[in-house]
Structures are given as C-alpha cells and as structure tokens.
C-alpha cells in the first residue's frame, strides 16, 4: 500500500459523498455535477462517469466492490456497475432525502433510510421488500448482511431493530444501548452486528439474539463509521468529533476475541466512510472542504493478533 496517513486527494470539486470499498483499495466520490469517480489508492482516477444531474448525498459499495449505489436528495436510489463505470438504473425509495444506505455483498439487496423510515429493496427493478417507520424518532443508519437476508435499522430512540430483509419480520431488538447507534455493520459471516454509538461505544452483538459478544469499546467522541476486517476478527471504528474548535477524531482497531484495542490513531479529521483493503489494512475517508481525505491505519502488529 502506498498511501500514507492523512493523504489528501484534490479533485477539482468538493465531493458531495464518498465511499470506501469494503474489501478492496478503491474509493469513490460523487460530485455536485453528477459525476461519479472511482479512485485507486494513490488518488489515480480509475473510472469516471456521469450518474445524473446532481451529486449523491450518500454513497456505498456492495461488499464485493462491483456495485456502487448512490442515494439522492430526491429520495431516489441509483445503482451503478463500479467495475465498468456505468449506471444500471434508478428507482424511487423515499419522498425525502436519503440519509443512509447499505448494500449486500453481491449488490442484490439495498437498505435505505430517510427521516423516520427505513426500507429494503431488490436492486434489480427496485422491488420494495419492506418499510419500517417510527412516529417518535428518526433513523440514524441501516445495514444489510452480506448475504442480503438480514437488515438492521438504528433509531434515535436508541433501539436497533434486526429484521428479516425479505419480509421485514422483526427478529430481535437491541434495547440496552444508552444512546443511538450512528453506524452499523454486519460481520463478513453475517452473524454479528457492530453498533457505533453517539456516546462513543462500539458494541458487538449476536444477530440472532442481540446479545453482547464482548465488553463495549469506547471512543471519546460519537462513532461515525465502522467496519469488520475481512476475516471478521477485528473491528475498526472512527470517532466523529462534534467539537468545532478541534475537529479531531480518533480511529480504533480492536480484537473482538481479546477485547483489546490494538491501534489507536488520534488527531484525524472526522471521517464518514471506512473500509479494509484486501491485505487487512483499514482505510478511512472523508469528503471534506478540501477534497477527499484518506488515512491509512497503522498496520496491526503480528504479535498482537488474536
């Protein structure tokens, strides 16, 4: 990997959204003129194409990196073939701006959130699988399992609902968090769910029951993004500083089995996306005023592996 900590891509315009390839080394950015670009690790533009008239507000790769899905301010979802750099189609998902979305490993199932509701769709044709809403709270994030059979929806009322993605049937509710989960991620085997919370906690749960797998890890800031390592034994999380004076956040990588923090990087700008490259190095990215900032996680020391 040739990237270095705090690497700054400087595209010609400020991105409206960014995404990290979950198990690869690509980064994608959406620009206000509707252009989508996929970058390599050195900031080289691998693919670029026009995906509409306006930039997306959220962007996400499928787990295999082949699909890139954007959510618009108009509530529409756009599906693209990342590897070929071309659009595949779009469908209406919500009547309001899409705040969050997630894509299954093969790109066949998409979960979305807008305001107080979340939904799941088949990406081909946009068939709606379920919608779940709340009258008293808003949705903070959604996730879909790699196989596309489970969905997770986090609300500001602090509950996280685990659902059958095909039917919307409620399977379990995680109701013992203290503050809302700002970000969710399924493990590669789909059996665990990581919740990154407003109070800085990173809580790992069994999908079947919602039970804790280990003691919660803790950031000093709300958690803005998280991801499992390719083998599911590590989780990396990014703090999201709410203090405009410092704007500093942190990145932690922890072993799930040993329940220990392995790496801890401070002093970065808040990041909104996170992925792992194939060699297990985590990278985080954030669309910022200056461009698309990228940081590599320091490599995990072999002796500290679980």
């Amino acid at each position: 990997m040739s990237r270095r900590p705090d690497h700054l891509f400087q595209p010609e315009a400020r991105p409206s959204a960014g995404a990290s390839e979950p198990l690869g080394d690509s980064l994608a950015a959406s620009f206000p003129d509707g252009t989508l670009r996929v970058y390599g690790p050195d900031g080289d533009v691998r693919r670029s194409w026009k995906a509409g008239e306006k930039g997306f507000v959220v962007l996400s790769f499928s787990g295999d990196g082949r699909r890139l899905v954007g959510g618009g301010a108009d509530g529409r979802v756009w599906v693209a073939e990342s590897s070929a750099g071309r659009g595949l189609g779009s469908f209406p998902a919500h009547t309001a701006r899409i705040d969050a979305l997630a894509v299954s490993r093969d790109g066949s199932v998409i979960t979305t959130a807008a305001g107080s509701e979340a939904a799941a769709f088949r990406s081909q044709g946009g068939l709606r699988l379920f919608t779940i809403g709340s009258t008293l709270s808003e949705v903070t994030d959604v996730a879909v399992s790699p196989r596309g059979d489970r969905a997770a929806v986090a609300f500001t009322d602090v509950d996280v609902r685990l659902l059958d993605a095909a039917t919307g049937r409620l399977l379990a509710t995680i109701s013992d968090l203290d503050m809302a989960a700002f970000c969710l991620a399924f493990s590669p085997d789909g059996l665990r769910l990581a919740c990154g919370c407003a109070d800085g906690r990173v809580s790992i749960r069994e999908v079947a029951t919602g039970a804790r797998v280990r003691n919660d890890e803790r950031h000093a800031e709300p958690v803005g993004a998280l991801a499992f390592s390719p083998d599911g034994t590590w989780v990396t999380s990014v703090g999201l500083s709410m203090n405009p004076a410092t704007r500093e956040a942190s990145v932690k990588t922890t072993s799930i089995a040993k329940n220990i923090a392995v790496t801890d990087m401070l002093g970065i700008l808040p990041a909104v996306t996170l992925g792992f490259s194939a060699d297990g190095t985590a990278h985080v990215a954030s669309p910022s005023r200056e461009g698309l900032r990228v940081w590599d996680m320091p490599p995990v020391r072999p002796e500290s592996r679980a």
Partner: protein
Amino acid sequence: MTFSRRDLMERCLATGALLLAPSLPLGLARPLFAADVAYPPTPPNELGPFYKRKAPKTAILAPEGAPGVPLTVEGVVLDTRGERLEGAMLELWHASSAGLYDNEGYLYRGVVEAGSKGVYEFRSVLPGHYVGRVCQHVHYKVTAPGHKALVTQLYFATDPAFDGDPDKNYTKDPVLKSRELVRPVSLAADGAVVRARVRFEVCLDRA
C-alpha cells in the same frame, strides 16, 4: 392582520429588550378548564441524535457554575381536553452554552415529573448553537399514562438566528417546522447577572 400584544412582546424580547417584570404566563392566556374547548396538541419535532436513556431525575440540568445565561423553564403538561397531567414525565436534554452535548455523562440532561396540576419547572442555562443546527433548542420527550408520547423541542425567540423576527425567520432552521415551538424569553437583570425565563405548555394527545 392584527398585531397582538403577544406579537409585540415577542418582537421586543427577540431583539434583546430586558424585562424587569416576572414573565407572563402566555401559554395560560386561554381558558384551561372550559370543557368545550379543544386544545391543540403541541407540535412534534425531531428526537435528534443525542437522546440518552437513564437520565437522572433532576430539575437542575446544568452543573453548578456552568457558563451561560441561567435559564428557568416552567409550564403545564395538559391534554387536548385541557386536563392537567400530574405525574407526566418529561425527559429533557440540550447542548451546553458552548453548543456541545454531554454524551459521556448526563450534564444538561434530566427527567422531571409534573407535579400538582401538571406544573413542571427545570433550571439550566440557555443552550448554545450546536454545530449542524441553526437554532438553540431544548429537547423534550413527554409521557403520561393514557396519552400518546410527545417528542418535541423548545426554541427561544431571542435566538440570534431569528434576527429579531422569529415569525419571519423560524424557517431558517430546517428542523423547526412550527412557529409555536418558539417561545418568548423573559430576561431579568439580577445584579450583574441576566436570567432568562421561558414558559412552555405541553399538550398531549389522548391515546
């Protein structure tokens, strides 16, 4: 269009005029107990991302000596038939005067129980401007048996974001959908300290 006393007061207060008299119970200006009067429920407003469970039961939200303008909020919890809801629970939270939420602990968070005749009161400091939000605000989550839970926010007519005219400018905050949630602020000089007092009635729908 008529220009009511209430409009005049709010505009004076919003521009920072000091009131040396106790606040007027504006929310009680209409008859509370007339059986034939229907009361509109308080408009809901977003719960927001920083709701925290298990807040302590306290009517003093700010720590002692906290910077900021001391604030007292008082009001009545009632329902759409005008019945006062003694025992209603109000969960309250807001940012510090610097605009920061305490997500690690419970500063600026508390649970207050409405007392006799549904009256509630809490003390804190005026919230600051939290990054990402236009207006100062206090979050409310109100529950009472037999009634629908209400999630809403209290806003302040003196907020600089309103530029002295909340009627015209309340839509500057995209989260703020209802002008009714912007309440007048009575400012009282207490020696060198200026204290703020706000009245905010909370009306719940029956379940």
